[in-house]
């Protein structure tokens, strides 16, 4: 899977289907709604055009919204994620260390770096997601707990997916 024209569409399809058909239907006590699909955005090449990343994030979010009948919800959160991604990337890594098409993946960054990078972005994404979803602050603490627990589970899920698929290569 070296060819990017094959790799990214395949990854997109696998993650979107897993999210839309399996993860969205999981009910973990009403607090935890993992959104592992954002791994697709996290793993786009570090030095890819920022506007293109944002457009892809928008389309990914919109596809997820299509499954869950939540037009604009995941799209908005994913666009925010893509907007802050360059900042977070330069916060934890030196973008200059990455080759033209290299990703911030487990092999490149190590487990610690990858977890930090993932968790910060997941937290931002989930904060937007859950506040967009309620659009009111009356259940503030409930929403806050949802954000924290879901972020932990999403990060864990992403880590599991990444570990399973990186051993194969």
């Amino acid at each position, binding site marked *: 899977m070296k060819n990017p024209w094959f790799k990214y569409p395949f990854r997109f399809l696998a993650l979107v289907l897993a999210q839309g058909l399996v993860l969205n239907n999981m009910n973990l006590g*009403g607090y935890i709604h993992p959104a592992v699909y954002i791994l697709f955005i996290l793993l786009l090449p570090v030095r890819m055009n920022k506007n293109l990343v944002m457009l892809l994030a928008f389309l990914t979010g919109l596809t997820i919204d299509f*499954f869950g*009948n*939540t037009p*604009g*919800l995941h799209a908005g959160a994913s*666009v925010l994620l893509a907007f802050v991604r360059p900042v977070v990337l330069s916060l934890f890594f030196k973008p200059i260390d990455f080759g033209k098409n290299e990703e911030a993946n487990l092999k490149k960054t190590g487990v610690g770096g990858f977890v930090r990078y993932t968790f910060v972005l997941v937290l931002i994404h989930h904060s937007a997601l859950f506040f967009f979803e309620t659009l009111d602050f009356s259940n503030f603490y*409930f929403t806050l707990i949802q954000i924290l627990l879901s972020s932990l589970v999403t990060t864990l899920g992403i880590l599991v997916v990444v570990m399973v698929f990186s051993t194969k290569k």
Partner: protein
Amino acid sequence: MYNLLAFFWKYRFFAFFVLLEVVSLWLLSNSYSYHKSLRFNAVNDATGNLFSSYNNVASYFSLRKENEKLLAENALLRNSLPSSFLITDTAFTFTDSLYHYLPARVLSNSVNKRNNFILVNKGWVHGVEKEMGVISGQGIAGIVIGTSKHYSSIMSVLHQNSRISGRIKKNKQLVTVVWNGQNYSEGLVSDIPSHIRLQRGDTIVTSGNSLIFPEGIVIGTVTEQRIPENKSLGEATLVFGTDFNGLQHVYLIKNKMKPEQDSLVNGYLN
């Protein structure tokens, strides 16, 4: 002009970000109003087909549970057959049916979001229309908000904009049932007159005022009432009759008199 263009070009990343967020929030705001979501038809046959083939496999895992539910419902229906009643009054007659029930299979459903939707395998070719009521064997489930040729999308009772006009079964008082977004099995009964005391287990049924649901369909049973201190209207929690998490079969209800009732109401509103 050139300066303006140069300005936007310089901050094009931020401008693009704002643009995409505005589009997202505009889409989102369309889905947060009941009337707008009626206009914004979110179903189409492509996603419907995908969910349908997924459901073909997944539905086998709960056949036993589903059979038991259907059995219980059959018993209930047999009890309401005319032949189950002792008819001594010769004036007992049948009138034209007012409501037509259309069975449908649930293809996708959620309970864990703030706004939940149900997708079913009946569309406008089967006679489904927007604003038809949807019930399960155990109680109300939602309202149709969009139809495609073979599928329709239902706004679940578990939705921010869902406000069901209900009635306390024992004393016929009107109340409103909403969902506060936390537990999928619990709803909130609001607008309870302050002199009304509810007991655990009191049934709340549909009022029949909305033209969407027939009168007397179970919404749920009361678990706890919060007596208001100075407000005139109180609240109570209720457990929904419908098990939203295990929803597999529903009935869509067509009110045959709705066009006539609607035109009457619109007549005096205009």
